[in-house]
């Protein structure tokens, strides 16, 4: 709740100024809220499965709409059409473009006691760390967890819906024969100097690759630092996977070690490749969370249940856009996910700063807690 505490005073002050200048009055009422403790979801828990399904549909259609915040909505046109064809309520979507903006909007709404989202789809670790810490998402109800296609997808505050694989991608015209990378260590070779793209803000990838190399592949922390420093020195940075992939396709870069799979997949016909994949492929899961104070709690449950099942088939069909949990493109590859054990939001922020330092060529490039600081 640090964010809320630290901004409460200033927001209060600014509000007083605004109120003083505009006249006082009640805040717009939020109707049908899930309640401060998310208890609206519990109301369905005691029912039998059939009763619950019918009650949720009836209540949801009475609520009239479900508001979903997300950061990637290539397939949401189809999702929207399919969902609205099945139920008599509107699916309202907000996608401001990045997970950070989604987070800022929801946290500010929560701090003001005026949540407008019912469901949020973002990185699962953010839901389980920051969103849970801020108290804006409700624990996943047991009956909703049961409706997930796989119980392994369910965590305390999130149900995974798809995953972002981050993997090395290269230009097949420029990188041939023995130069084709077979390990992330290869990006430390002189061949890649000045011809590599590293994507900013991918600290979950950085964390995952650190855990893999140091815990499973026997690399020491010092060796990891040396390798990453070399790779960073070889690299230009790109603000997302898409410009990095476009740069690789055009020959500006030979390749990059941490490109989201979706980016090269979009470049149909371009001279880029990620196969044979370099094991293991780091996967960063995304998932949905239920707002604790959702204005349309029944609609949130209805949409979530539908999205995890019927919606998942649409996601799976659009494999190139969003990789669902039953990933098929990378079936042959070993995969690794970030180990969130002992990870807190503070530590995650330390990873963010460390990765930023790496790209800028400053120290430290690892959080103190993993360097023994």
């Amino acid at each position: 709740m640090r964010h809320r505490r630290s901004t409460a005073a200033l927001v209060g002050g600014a509000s007083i100024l605004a109120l003083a200048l505009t006249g006082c009055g009640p805040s717009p009422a939020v109707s049908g809220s899930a309640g401060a403790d998310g208890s609206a979801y519990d109301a369905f828990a005691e029912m039998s499965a059939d009763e619950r399904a019918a009650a949720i549909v009836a209540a949801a259609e009475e609520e009239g709409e479900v508001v979903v915040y997300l950061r990637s909505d290539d397939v949401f046109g189809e999702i929207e059409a399919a969902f609205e064809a099945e139920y008599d309520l509107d699916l309202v979507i907000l996608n401001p473009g990045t997970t950070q903006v989604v987070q800022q909007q929801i946290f500010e709404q929560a701090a003001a006691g005026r949540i407008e989202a019912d469901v949020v789809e973002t990185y699962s670790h953010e839901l389980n760390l920051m969103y849970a810490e801020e108290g804006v998402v409700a624990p996943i109800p047991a009956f909703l967890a049961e409706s997930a296609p796989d119980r392994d997808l369910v965590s305390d505050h999130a149900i995974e819906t798809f995953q972002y694989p981050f993997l090395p991608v290269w230009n097949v015209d420029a990188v041939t024969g023995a130069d084709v990378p077979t390990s992330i260590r290869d990006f430390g070779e002189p061949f890649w100097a000045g011809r590599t793209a590293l994507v900013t803000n991918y600290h979950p990838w950085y964390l995952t690759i650190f855990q893999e190399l140091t815990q499973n592949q026997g690399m020491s922390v010092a060796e990891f630092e040396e390798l990453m420093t070399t790779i960073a020195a070889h690299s230009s940075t790109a603000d997302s996977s898409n410009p990095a992939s476009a740069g690789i396709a055009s020959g500006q870069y030979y390749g990059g070690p941490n490109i989201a799979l979706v980016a090269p997949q979009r470049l149909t016909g371009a001279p880029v490749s990620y196969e044979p994949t370099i094991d293991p492929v780091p996967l960063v899961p995304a998932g949905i969370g239920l707002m604790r104070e959702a204005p349309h709690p029944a609609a949130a449950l209805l949409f979530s249940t539908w999205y995890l099942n019927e919606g998942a088939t649409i996601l799976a069909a659009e494999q190139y856009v969003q990789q669902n949990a039953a990933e098929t493109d990378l079936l042959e590859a070993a995969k690794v996910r970030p180990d969130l054990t002992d990870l807190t939001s503070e530590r995650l922020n330390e990873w963010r700063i460390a990765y930023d330092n790496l790209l800028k060529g400053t120290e430290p490039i690892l959080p103190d807690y993993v360097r023994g600081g």
Partner: protein
Amino acid sequence: MVSETVLVRPEPPTQTPVPPEPIGGSGRRPRWRPTSKHIVYVVVLAVVAYLVGTPIFYLLWGTFFDESGFTLDAFRRAFGSPSALHTVWNTIVFAVGSAAIAVVLGTGLAYLQARTDVPFKGLLFAASLTPLVLPPVVYAISWVFLYGGDVGIISSFLAGIFGSSPVDAYGLGGMIVAAGLHTVPLVFLFMVPAFKAMDPSLEEAARVAGANWWTVMRRVTLQVIRPALASSTVIVLVLGLESFEIPVILGETKGVEVFTSRIYFLMHGYPTDIGAAGAVSIGIMLLAMLLMYGTGAGGSSKKEFQTMTGKNFRPSPVRLGRAKGWVGAGVGLYFLFSVILPVLALLYVSLSPFYRTPSWESLAAMDFTNYIELAEVRNIFPATMNTIVVALVAATITMIITTLAAWFVVRSTMFGRKLLDVLTLAPLVIPGLVLGLGMMSVYLRSPIPIYGTLVILVVAYVTRYLPYGMRYSASAMTQIGNELEEAAHVNGAKWWTTFRRILLPLAAPGILSGWIFVVLVSFRELSATVLLAGPKSEVLSVILFRQYNEGTFGVVAALSIVMIAILCAIIGISYSVGSRFGTKVEL
């Protein structure tokens, strides 16, 4: 040389004659009654104070106070890193460099347009405005397509000749040139009315006295247009300090960090460090003030700069003579590099499945798939309508407020007018991200139910673009001589009548330029919008940003082409309507 900051307003015009006391009066001082002028002043001051005060308060409080009370820790978090000095240096070099390009080119082009017989004036006008139509993110991308490494359209050609391209969009140099060319239109829009409003007798007198062209330009022309020049210089300097998309896309690749990229990083952490972001914003403000003094961009606009007097005049065009061909070629070259090539690059990408260096193969693969996909983008049609409505409404409200404010600041002796001037300038130093976050926080708690609606976008844009509207309006007002207003007053006209029938028509070209500018920048505003637009109030800039993040560059390019077309239509209609109603804009 006067080198005061632009915050210093001109001396008020000659005191308005006080009507004689009625004969047979009681002998006591007449009871003061508020007139329409006083009421309008109070309303304008209150509105501006409200619009500006809210985000400023949010910014300052978040910077200097935390749970434990007053603190300066935010500055340590913002500037404590070893790379901070480097960031400051990058920011200064970028802001000054891009401003220098914009001021030199913008003023030169405006002079050619307004005062000479340069050929292709229509082309020059289009060339001078079009970069402004392109959102910065799109302009930066078009530069990558043109000059990115050795694989850009132009740089690959040069690399073929020289082995390696001598020009590169990436890095500080690329940032400076791209941002400079992108802000040329702003200076142009400022300077054209100023040049057009000049009384040519001043220059003629100097010439008669034996001064050559350069001396006349330096000692007369540039002196007379100094208010407009100072205003535009200040604005492009601050725009450079505030610029976000161009440094991120062209600079970060080579590790060039500026203040705005630092703010972005601070604001997107967890928890959001609004204090450190505020400290960086205050850094921007201090830098802006230093740069204003250091570059002499401040300046007064005393009566000596009033160029629009009761005398009728029409500046005769300066004949370029034998230089006409060279100047025309220069204009064509500018048009080619600043407009044609970036737009062609966008067009090429919008018609291609993905970017690659042009070849027969890539040209043969071009089709309209990206435009079809654009038409299928969720919310694209409501967002287009929202964008047009919000931009037009915001620009109109901004210019109404700032035209009135400019009169009080420039031409009145009202108490508190300097405060009004400072308030209208203040949003310049509030980065869009901070403004958006501040407004979101406030209006989520406000009884005014505008959060998530188009109205909050209008409020944000009016707040954000007050300084620009004010500079355009104040520039226009400054150049109008006092005698016109005094004559009206002596003949019994009330303040409102004088304002409406004398000042407004004379200032109309400048106000119209300001309106067009605010429309253009509102159309593409992103940093505050992305936080404030709701599911039902999306605008095109948010969709552009979303598509950019989705990686559909072809759709981004297609949307950019559509936005350019819409804005060109709006500008064309505005000038046409403006001319019909007598603004005498002769661009």
